[in-house]
């Protein structure tokens, strides 16, 4: 029988293995090309009989000439082909218990399938049809415009939604894909012809990369080749469109969106280089200390000590061309100014005082531990590889990230704080 209770000391943490001692390993992908040269990246892992297939096109709003054309083409891809109505397409995927989602981002646009692996071959032919023969019916477009405008009207009542749009505009400029947003008038101006042109250029003859992960059926390569290997994709990636950001001159903004609002959306942000910059990975560590997780300084101070908010976070935006460092919270309307003061105070402390070893070790351990958890499962591994490939990064980036977490010094972090956490260089926005 157990008789350890007398000896049990509940005040002392049991021995731990320091996560920084772990050797983290990112399971490699398998790469092959389809008959038409399309690159396929595959991660075989997992215990459940499910898989995820994602087709990534260079068809984000980076490539549109008119606002919301890229998003509209992406949304309406599955709303009709010459031989199938939107309903029939939905019915097909629903019948197999599959999910076909599409998303439009800044540089890329995706079509994502989640399904039981036994059904893959029943589903890919219809995706082929969407990529070769989508017809964008006028009535589908009309319904889409009507419903998107209504959704937008509801969202525009929310202070957080309004704040997210405006802060990006200040950071990048409205002309830039990262800074642009949509009005109901933009939806009104969407026309079928522009969508069809966009579809032809960026999907039918577009640049496509395929990612697949899960417990893959033995014949999955043949299934993919059969479905997508004959499509006339242009995978040479000749077309690179340069667009430069133009950050706003004015730094501080206040907006009353809802006079009766009881909370304020606060955004404090600065421009920041992309993942290829030598400071990027080290700054991720500094960001964790600052506002990157539950135990961060911003959370400890502004939520756990002052109770001004349900949550406050800082993060580096996940863009390909350039990034931004963002602090984001919804807090009590009457404490918005106090919240902003505390954010700047925390920046100053990071500039003036070295992070002590105990705190830095905790952040290192936390980052490694959660990274280990993030690498658990086929979809997680696949999505990490996808991010590296789309950002033109290699396994070196992963290894370097781990090395940085384990070894970056307090002095280096302080000098980064001095370089980047200067309140004058931040945009500041309060939306009530």
């Amino acid at each position, binding site marked *: 029988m157990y008789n350890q209770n007398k000896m049990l000391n509940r*005040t002392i943490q049991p021995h731990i293995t320091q996560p920084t001692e772990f050797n983290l390993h990112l399971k490699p992908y398998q790469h092959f090309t389809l008959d038409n040269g399309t690159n396929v990246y595959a991660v075989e892992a997992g215990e459940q009989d499910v898989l995820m297939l994602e087709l990534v096109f260079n068809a984000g709003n980076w490539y549109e000439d008119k606002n919301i054309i890229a998003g509209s083409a992406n949304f309406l891809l599955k709303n009709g082909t010459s031989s199938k109505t939107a309903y029939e397409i939905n019915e097909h995927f*629903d019948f197999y218990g599959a999910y076909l989602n599409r998303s439009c981002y800044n540089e890329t646009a995706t079509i994502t399938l989640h399904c*039981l692996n036994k059904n893959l071959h029943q589903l890919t032919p219809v995706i082929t049809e969407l990529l070769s023969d989508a017809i964008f019916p006028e009535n589908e477009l009309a319904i889409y415009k009507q419903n998107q405008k209504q959704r937008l*009207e509801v969202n525009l009542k929310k202070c957080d939604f309004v704040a997210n749009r405006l802060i990006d505009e200040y950071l990048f400029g409205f002309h830039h894909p990262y800074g642009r947003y949509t009005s109901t008038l933009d939806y009104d101006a969407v026309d079928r012809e522009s969508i069809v042109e966009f579809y032809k250029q960026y999907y039918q003859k577009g640049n496509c990369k395929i990612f697949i992960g899960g417990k893959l059926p033995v014949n999955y390569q043949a299934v993919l080749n059969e479905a997508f290997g004959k499509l006339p994709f242009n995978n040479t990636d000749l077309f690179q469109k340069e667009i430069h950001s133009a950050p706003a001159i004015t730094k501080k903004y206040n907006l009353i969106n809802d006079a009766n609002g009881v*909370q304020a959306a606060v955004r404090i942000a600065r421009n920041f280089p992309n993942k290829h910059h030598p400071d990027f990975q080290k700054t991720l560590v500094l960001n964790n200390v600052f506002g990157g997780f539950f135990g961060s300084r911003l959370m400890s101070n502004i939520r756990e000590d002052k109770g001004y908010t349900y949550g406050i976070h800082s993060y580096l935006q996940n863009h390909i061309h350039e990034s931004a460092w963002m602090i984001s919270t919804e807090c009590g309307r009457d404490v918005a100014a106090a919240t902003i003061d505390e954010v700047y105070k925390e920046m100053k402390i990071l500039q003036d005082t070295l992070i002590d070893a105990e705190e830095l070790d905790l*952040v290192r*351990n*936390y980052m490694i*531990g959660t990274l*280990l958890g993030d690498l658990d499962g086929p979809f997680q591994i696949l999505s990490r590889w996808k991010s590296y490939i789309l950002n033109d990064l290699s396994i070196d980036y992963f290894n370097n990230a781990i090395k940085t977490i384990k070894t970056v010094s307090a002095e280096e972090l302080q000098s980064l704080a001095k370089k980047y956490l200067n309140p004058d260089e931040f945009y500041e926005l309060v939306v009530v």
Partner: protein
Amino acid sequence: MIQYNKFILDNGLRVLIHKDDSTPMAVVNVLYDVGAKDELPNKTGFAHLFEHLMFGGSINIEDYDEPLQRAGGENNAYTTNDLTNYYCQLPAENLETAMWLESDRMLSLAFNKKSLETQRKVVCEEFKEHYINKPYGDVWAKMRALTYTVHPYGWMTIGKELSHVEDATLEDVKAFFKKHYCPANAVLVIAGKVETTTALELANKWFGSIPSGEKYNRNLPLEPVQTAPKFLEVKADVPLDALVKAWHIDSRLEKGYYVADLITEVLGGGGSSRLFQKLVKEKQLFSNLDCYHFGSVEKGLIAIEGKLVKGKSMQDAEDAIEEELQKIMTELVSENELQKVKNKTESVIAFEDMALMSRANSLAFYELLGDATMMDTELSKYQAITTQDILEYSKIIFNKNNSNTLRYYSKN
């Protein structure tokens, strides 16, 4: 089949151990059999506020989060009307840190005054962020109050009003802890890259000496059968009219629950569902429309909720929904349609079971319901449902006298 071993410690704590060598991680999940339904009508929101206080330090450990983060772990918790669940995931080597932390807060909290004061504010901000400062944020507060006359599902987990949270005292907190937070009222699940014997030893070591506490036997007021349709009209500063309807359904373990779940899929699951196709696409009465239920342990609700296309009348919208309900109450769904929603259910279960955390959570939940092995028989319960079941149960739940309707009008 999910593999696990179940043990009951001497103090009554149920311990489930699920070994999975394919992951480097371990999950510790502690579920307490207490939710917002166990609150007093004048002290609502308390179970959830209490969840926040569980992170404010325990009797021997000043700070919960820091040692866990140091061990490379992360954690969270949630409260529903039925239960409160705490979970952490960390590298399997450091499992014992999670056991140490969870056991100490089951033993006793520090009952820190400052923590209570801060978390009252934090929860008030959470309340504002999700339910006040958001268009339509109060819909379900109103619907719950309309649909339930005596049962405590009549209020939201966050609470009826801010003042209930603001008025919580340290005495309330202590009494709540004593009543609900003890081995007799908890389920512990340990999952991941763990050896069953080691995990059990750790469970005994850290939880075995915690006093059992008293098993809480809830005696909730039974909601009387609704005998007439109920209506509520609201005018608010929102851009669009909205319509919300709800009907009472069976409790989690009754057959009707599973049938209702499939009915939500027939009516509102995905782009080929009936309501979406008829009312959003063909008739264009709604710009969006959902049909769902709450997964409640006690007798719950099935709901249809949507925003009207501008210029369409509430009456037309209601009539069109009624027409679809009449159809499902009078005509059998086709075998093909039934197969479709069953396939979807199979797929949902497979995807849910991918994540270790989700498996640990499900084991705890089914154990709370009575027996974790139910996790394996869920799919067969859905498979057994016939087109006749759908028809018969639709007649019962969509009976007009069982309906609750909220007409939420735009002021503008």
